[in-house]
């Protein structure tokens, strides 16, 4: 009677509706968390700090998301969506290309890890979070465009900006996104083991 028993796990590499919906859901959660933190960024001093707390907190939903990623393209799509959202909310267009590159790197690492290796997942989380750095690029390039000579503050502004966000800060922020992304990934892994696997959702 049980001759035609089939195990129903399917191994199609094409992204199916289920995968795309998962990307949407976790993008929503991730984005809400980042946005809630970014509200503190209206105080300019806090802005660079976003590269610290953003990846740290964002790592938790992202690591849960990774447990659902079994096909090529899901991380990349999530990165693209983050880039588009930044453009939509007026944070500039630089995030999109940055996100595409960092997303692709993350995607490739995760593919190499055969979508399961724990240590790689943390690294993937680090690379993914680099998209945030894209938001800061316009502040580092072309600082003279804005105030320029229209006001007496022109020269002062350049100096002030250099003081607040000196150009060496740019790579620092990049590294910080990556490093705290990794820490966020580790944090996410802890919670994954502590809660989500037991709760049956990972």
């Amino acid at each position: 009677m049980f001759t035609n028993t089939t195990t129903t796990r399917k191994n199609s590499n094409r992204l199916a509706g289920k995968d795309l919906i998962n990307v949407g859901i976790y993008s929503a959660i991730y984005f809400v968390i980042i946005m809630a933190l970014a509200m503190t960024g209206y105080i300019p001093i806090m802005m660079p700090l976003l590269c610290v707390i953003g990846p740290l907190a964002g790592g938790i939903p992202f690591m849960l998301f990774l447990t659902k990623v079994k096909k090529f393209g899901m991380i990349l799509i999530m990165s693209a969506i983050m880039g588009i959202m930044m453009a939509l909310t007026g944070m500039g267009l630089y995030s999109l290309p940055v996100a595409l590159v960092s997303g692709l790197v993350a995607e490739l690492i995760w593919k190499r890890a055969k979508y399961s290796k724990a240590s790689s997942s943390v690294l993937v989380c680090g690379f993914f979070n680099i998209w945030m750095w894209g938001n800061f690029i316009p502040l580092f390039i072309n600082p003279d465009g804005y105030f320029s000579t229209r006001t007496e503050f022109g020269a002062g502004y350049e100096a002030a900006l250099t003081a607040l966000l000196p150009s060496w800060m740019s790579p620092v922020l990049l590294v910080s996104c990556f490093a705290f992304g990794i820490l966020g990934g580790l944090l996410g892994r802890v919670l994954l083991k502590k809660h989500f696997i037991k709760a049956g959702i990972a």
Partner: protein
Amino acid sequence: MIEFKNVSFKYANADSGSLQNISLRVRKGECVLLCGQSGCGKTTLTRLINGLIPHYYEGELSGEVVVGGLDVRDIELYDTARIVGSVFQNPRSQFFCVDTTGEIAFGCENLGLPPDEIEERVKLSSREMGAINLLGRSIFQLSGGEKQKIACASVSAMRPEVFVLDEPTSNLDINAIHDLKETIRLWKKEGKTIIIAEHRLYWLTELCDRVIYLRNGEIECDMPMREFCRITPEGLRKLSLRTRSLKELCYRKVSSQAGEYLTLQNYRYSYRGSMPPVLDIQEAVLPKKGVIAIIGNNGAGKSTLSKCLCGLQKRFGGHCRCGSAVYSRRQMLKKSYLVMQDVNHQLFCESVEEELRLGMDGADEKELVRVMDSLELTALKERHPMSLSGGQKQRVAIASALLAGKEFLVFDEPTSGLDFYHMERTAKLLFSLGREKTVLIITHDPELIVRCCDYVLHMEWGGVKEQYQLNEAGLLKLRYFFENGERKRISVE
């Protein structure tokens, strides 16, 4: 139309809900009721018909499921979608779009129909469902019943031959159930094949032609509705089924508890931007000890009342008097606890024990042991709260409230989607809690009310319509409400 040949299925990562050796034939135009205890495999059976098994939920499947002449295993989900339309339990989670029109059109858009035809179909099916006035609205502003209407319209617009409904009334009030009944009647008239998995039976006796009773994944009986109606109420209890008719309800005689009263004063609240207050009670006197049922239609202000009572609404100025003591909003927040419909919102820790210790005032070990014992949680104390069953989670939430020294316990729909056995268990627990604390239950479940409540508070339009002791006369009022519902509130522009 539907044929199962020796079908067995086991989920990849769960033991419950598996099916064994199901053979079944449903003719075109039949309306079939699937019933049985929780975990008996009703939902699994519906998932086999709409193709979610094996294409979405993974597991081991054997045998053959043929729907409309096609083997569901061979065709993709989006092809099954043309033949089988599905309505699910939770109205909140089955939406893809954020606006009602888009939602009704969603299925047709996926089929790639031309926009003009979709417009036609959206109009037609929303007219049929009585949902014309809901078009162009935000989904998030609709009540549960309205959402379920949109879900039906969306499925109907795809014009499938088979409709599968999985516990569609779990979150609905009496009027919404009535509307759903009309919808199904319409589908039936159009000659569609309808499969309904459901715990609540009283609205289905005149609708379904055939009843299939499942136990532990097997079909135990399969009979025409006429025959099912002949089973005695005691026979139904044995099958762990809910009542077939509200006429069978009888209440539990309680020696009325003498004494103290609780007075709610100035219970008024309106949400930002909405002019008429959703809650408007000048004064209401309720018994302090006992179990109070809060009934009324969706939008009557029941949940707002519960939130105000628990001190959760920030701009709320009312207070609660008990003897000589007057509790403000802040004090009520300390003294009361709301057990939410989705208990998952209130479980935070890694283990049941840790969960119970969190928020306990002093670490009173004896009390902890006593409460855990009385709620049968001792054996579960190492488990992760989220890994428990719905009923167990509910008990954890109750235990945490008791240990935090709460005096007022409010329950929001504690028995939605429960079978007879689990409902009765919950009723017993609520009843015993009511001997020491004030227990308020928001519910649409008449069977629960007659089993545990002493008192009924009937709300309408934000105010108290009636309040009465649940005795002979009270039972008649209660029965009248659940049989006839209320005329709906005319929606204000």
